[in-house]
């Protein structure tokens, strides 16, 4: 039970953080053309976005929860389970970021999720 809760925290906090970062970046006008000066200006804007810092804080929460979890739980169970982030990410992209997730993309996400779970089993 404690394990499930911790895995859920790791997956949800990490994914929520990435979604928040993505939400912040969608609000910045695109970088065109990609030159050193446009990139620097872009990054300057990016680091002034509130959502970026919310995202970084959530990602850090997910990361430190993972470290805490790894200190007592089995790596071969925990790391494959974090592959669920791909499903959580696609769901968040569809329902929170309102992205168009085409059926082909869903199929790809499920394969990647399974693949990451298998590759990280020890």
């Amino acid at each position: 039970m404690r394990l499930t809760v911790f895995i859920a925290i790791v997956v949800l906090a990490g994914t929520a953080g990435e979604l928040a970062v993505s939400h912040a970046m969608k609000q910045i006008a695109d970088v065109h053309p990609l030159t050193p000066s446009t990139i620097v200006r872009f990054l300057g804007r990016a680091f002034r976005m509130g959502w970026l810092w919310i995202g970084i804080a959530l990602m850090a929460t997910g990361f430190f929860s993972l470290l805490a979890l790894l200190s007592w739980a089995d790596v071969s169970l925990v790391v494959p389970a974090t592959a669920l982030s791909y499903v959580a990410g696609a769901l968040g992209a569809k329902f929170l970021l309102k992205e168009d997730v085409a059926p082909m993309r869903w199929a790809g996400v499920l394969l990647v999720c399974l693949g990451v779970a298998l590759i990280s089993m020890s």
Partner: protein
Amino acid sequence: MSLKGFHTETYILLALMVFFGSLGNVLLSRGMKQTGEIIDFSPSALAGAFVRVFTNGSIWLGIASLLVFFASYLLLLSWADFSYVQPASAIGYALVAVLGYFMLGEFISPTRWTGVLLICAGVLLVGGTDPSPSGRGRRDSQQAGAPGEGRRDAKLETLTLPSPRAPRGRG
């Protein structure tokens, strides 16, 4: 920007993310091993470990690599969908396994090979979709200008409404 240039930039940034993300992790891991295991948690010992970590060249190269990774990630997310970037960058897992096999002679179990194949197939499927079907980054942002923060959600909603028709235009 032409469609071709757009795809080229997307692939270049994905490649930078995968390369510098993996390199950064390897360098940090090497640096931490060089500085030695932290066994003594007394304040003075921790201070010593802190100094050793932050005077280590590998650690700084690792941090620099991860900064390049994060900058590429942010740039890419400004025009590509999160549901495209997240699965597409998983190709890094497969690459690291395959590189470990060919360059370091590491053993890869059948389970892990199956994982590598599934990731490659999944990334191919995701890569076959338009990175930005709703075109928010590349097209709509010009019309939207670059508004400040807050109260933007409502505006984004209206911007995304035409999205189901958008992909066809991009062929």
